């Protein structure tokens, strides 16, 4: 009897702990459902838009994970990685490189540029340990000025460019660059597109087969097996046999290649943590003092984390722009850090802990709210602009809440250790 009571309490504690940990996520979930209803849009419409936004944004959000694990908070300076990518894209258009090759060239240019910027960012953040999140945010703003100088003056005047990216009679790079002409538009998306339902069946089948094999080989716990197997069966069944769900996903297609890249990045985030370098990321993230005492070069590890993150974010921006089809030369990078940071926080990540799942769930919820907030604003206040303001408000709000929670938790941990309570 007592044992049962104990178990009950345990469950209760676990639920409470989970609630505290993921409160932001749950609030967001509730808000999203409410907004979906208010917006009055068809699920089919919302779903296909959401798929597009996931395609665009997942890669960038996932690039935030390594610095978080290395104890550097949210690397808002990924904005600078995005700027590097835009240099690459602009040059690819300038040289008239076509399709996939063009994007590959842009990615190639991004790599050394973003790595170099990442090195500089990391070195600077090493001088402001403990304030990396805010520091990287300000760095992003600062870099914006340098970026404008580069694109308005140096490109065109100092480094000659073709008429493909400039406007005759004006200085600097054109305001808007079109990716349609060179076939860069959706060059990755178009490689292989599959209807969502087919894709779901295949993925579910693979997961089911894999989990059965692993379970039979005793390499997977029973609990995990049951969860994975039932999730894959239920989702497939829903799409196949429930007409409403079937219609919802009906017209949506999945750009397989992009999602393969996203999957690779998820895998990378996991696998790197199982290497010597990954062990260093984790050690430095949890205690710089101890890591240092063990002979780890803390500063170097932190710089590497930021370099990787900046390069990945750059590549993420290429995926983003190719899906969009136009490059707003002077503003496309502005919100990258802010929205990605807000996304991962919505997924339940904190300034010192983040996983792939949190990044994916967060991106899903954050962008779901994005899709429906304008229409919901219209229904509520008769003005679509209100929805627009609301999502900016939410993005900053989520980040502010995360910063406050971080400090609050640190204080709680300190109070727990206090010797004042006998």
């Amino acid at each position, binding site marked *: 009897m007592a044992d049962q009571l104990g178990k009950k309490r345990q469950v209760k504690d676990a639920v409470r702990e989970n609630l505290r940990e993921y409160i932001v996520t749950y609030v967001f979930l509730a808000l999203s459902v409410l907004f979906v209803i208010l917006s009055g849009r068809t699920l089919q419409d919302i779903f296909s838009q959401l798929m597009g936004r996931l395609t665009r944004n997942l890669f960038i959000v996932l690039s935030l994970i390594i610095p978080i694990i290395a104890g550097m908070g949210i690397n808002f300076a990924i904005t600078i990685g995005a700027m590097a990518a835009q240099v690459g894209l602009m040059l690819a258009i300038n040289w008239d490189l076509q399709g996939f090759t063009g994007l590959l060239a842009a990615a190639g240019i991004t790599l050394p540029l973003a790595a170099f910027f990442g090195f500089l960012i990391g070195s600077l953040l090493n001088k402001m340990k403990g304030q990396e999140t805010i520091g990287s945010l300000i760095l992003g703003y600062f870099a914006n000025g340098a970026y404008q100088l580069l694109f308005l003056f140096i490109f065109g005047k100092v480094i000659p460019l073709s008429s493909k990216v400039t406007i005759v009679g004006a200085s600097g790079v054109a305001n808007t660059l079109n990716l349609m002409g060179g076939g860069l538009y959706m060059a990755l998306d178009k490689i292989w597109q599959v209807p969502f339902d087919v894709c779901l069946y295949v993925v579910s089948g693979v997961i089911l087969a894999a989990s059965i094999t692993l379970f039979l080989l005793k390499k997977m716990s029973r609990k995990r097996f049951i969860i994975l197997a039932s999730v894959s069966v239920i989702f497939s069944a829903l799409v196949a046999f429930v007409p409403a769900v079937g219609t919802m996903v009906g017209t949506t297609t999945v750009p397989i290649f992009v999602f393969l890249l996203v999957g690779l990045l998820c895998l990378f985030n996991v696998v790197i943590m199982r290497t*010597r*370098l990954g062990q260093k990321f984790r050690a430095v993230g949890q205690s710089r003092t101890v890591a240092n005492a063990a002979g780890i070069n803390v500063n170097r590890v932190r710089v590497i984390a930021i370099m990787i993150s900046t390069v990945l974010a750059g590549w993420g921006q290429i995926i983003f722009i190719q899906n969009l089809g136009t490059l707003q030369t002077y503003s496309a990078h502005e919100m990258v850090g802010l929205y990605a940071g807000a996304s991962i926080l919505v997924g339940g990540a904190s300034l010192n802990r983040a996983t792939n799942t949190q990044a994916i769930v967060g991106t899903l919820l954050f962008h779901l709210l994005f899709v429906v907030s304008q229409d919901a604003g219209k229904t509520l206040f008769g003005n679509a602009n209100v929805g627009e303001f609301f999502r900016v408000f939410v993005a900053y709000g989520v980040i502010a809440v995360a910063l406050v929670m971080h400090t609050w938790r640190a204080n709680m941990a300190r109070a727990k250790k206090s010797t*004042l309570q006998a």
Partner: protein
Amino acid sequence: MSLEYILEMNGITKQYGESAVLKDVTLKVRPGEIHALLGENGAGKSTLMNILFGMPVIHLTGGFKGDVLVAGEPANIASPQVAMEKGIGMVHQEFMLIPGFTVTENIKLNREISQPNLVSRILGHELESLDHAAMAADARNALDNVGVKIPEDTLVSALPVGYMQFVEIAREIDKTGVKLLVFDEPTAVLTESEADQLISVMRSIAGSGIAIIFITHRLGEVMKAADTVTVLRDGRLVDRKAISDTTLMELAGMMIGRGGEGIIAPPPRREPLSGRAALHVRDLRVEMPGEMVRGIDLDVLEGEILGIGGLAGQGKVGLPNGVMGLYPTAGEAELFGEKLPLNNPEASLRHGMSMVSEDRRGVGLLLDESIEDNICFNAMQIKGQFLAGPGVFKLKSTRQIREYARKMIKELDIRCTSPAQPVGTLSGGNQQKVCIARALALEPSFLFVSEPTRGIDIGAKALVLDTLVRLNREQGLTIVMVSSELSELRSICDRVVIVAEGKVADILNPDSPDEHFGLAMSGLKAREVAQA
């Protein structure tokens, strides 16, 4: 052939600038022995260990004289890395463990076993995959050698504090070729039974041929664990003895030494103390980083000068800071029979308490302000003195302030050009006097003085102490003086409280034997030791 000494440090002399912190010190450690290193704060223990580990601080300050032999060969230990390669390991007092890592991961931190993979062949060693199985096996082996049964895959955060130490030890042992392990105050955070277990682990490590240097201030543990002991005092070697040839009392005496002559000879009291309690504290706990108070019961008598002594970090400085409300505090306190609210500096000041802080440049003084403003600042804020003007429109009265400052400058003999001179330009001793003047401007009935003679020269010291005695004898001011210098406590105090590990270890008369002070500093009571 077997070596006589695994480590020899001969004729070590080290100077920081002008002052010598080590003078011709010798330390010799045999293989497989537990060698205790004993001494007060400032005796030179940490400097000696810094030299042994080749810490940068030694080389940046001009190196040292003397030679170091490891395993009979001259060793030039230029960096901690070299020390590690020579087989010298350290078990820290503060745990150097990562809570979110498993025991294995901590033991193998930055010495992971890894295997090359496709990527690492191109991009280098750093990207090799970890071989968790091999790492776990190594960790298990090291834990077995230490003799503890904790599973190697538990998270360190889930371990009881006592076990964390064993993980540290296992990590040092796992490093190949360890010959000498330094334990720095390893029992400070352990319970008694955990400390006993640690000592038996140390014995079994020593039994396997690894020498141990055991730094501690707990004399009882030295007697229990060590084979040999080296005692340092004021940077000099006092003696090196086999434990079998010495006693607890003798060690306590050696650690403290003769207190020297009293710095000043205070005049006797004209009338005996009333015996009433001025300050009464019960179960006082103060969270002052590095000076934790863990439950002090104490009565300070009206009109006495009470001394508080003890080693650094044991909590003696925490007491005045806690009562004055400068650090988070819990417990009960009464001042002259009235309940004193804690964690409220203003209330403490209003109740008639005043404090001369040990951190005079940080807490005590506004360095850029003038002497007179520093003296009168608190009195102005707390008591509304030195103000003039009608109603609520009160302005500070320069005339009153100047007058009072002149009076104090004369009384305390503060050497300055004028009351308007910025305090930052005064010498340490004169700054200290300004601090005292400021405390007195509140017309306190109870005065805390914390480390009043730190960093000031001998002449000024005597003057400061004289001032305190005069205030006590002439105005009947109750004074609690905290000091690291036992000799000055013993020269002016009526009673001396020794604080060890955040608690009152013993209350002694100034003329108690040196041994009793030595025992108290390591947390033992002379009476109890004599009975045992």
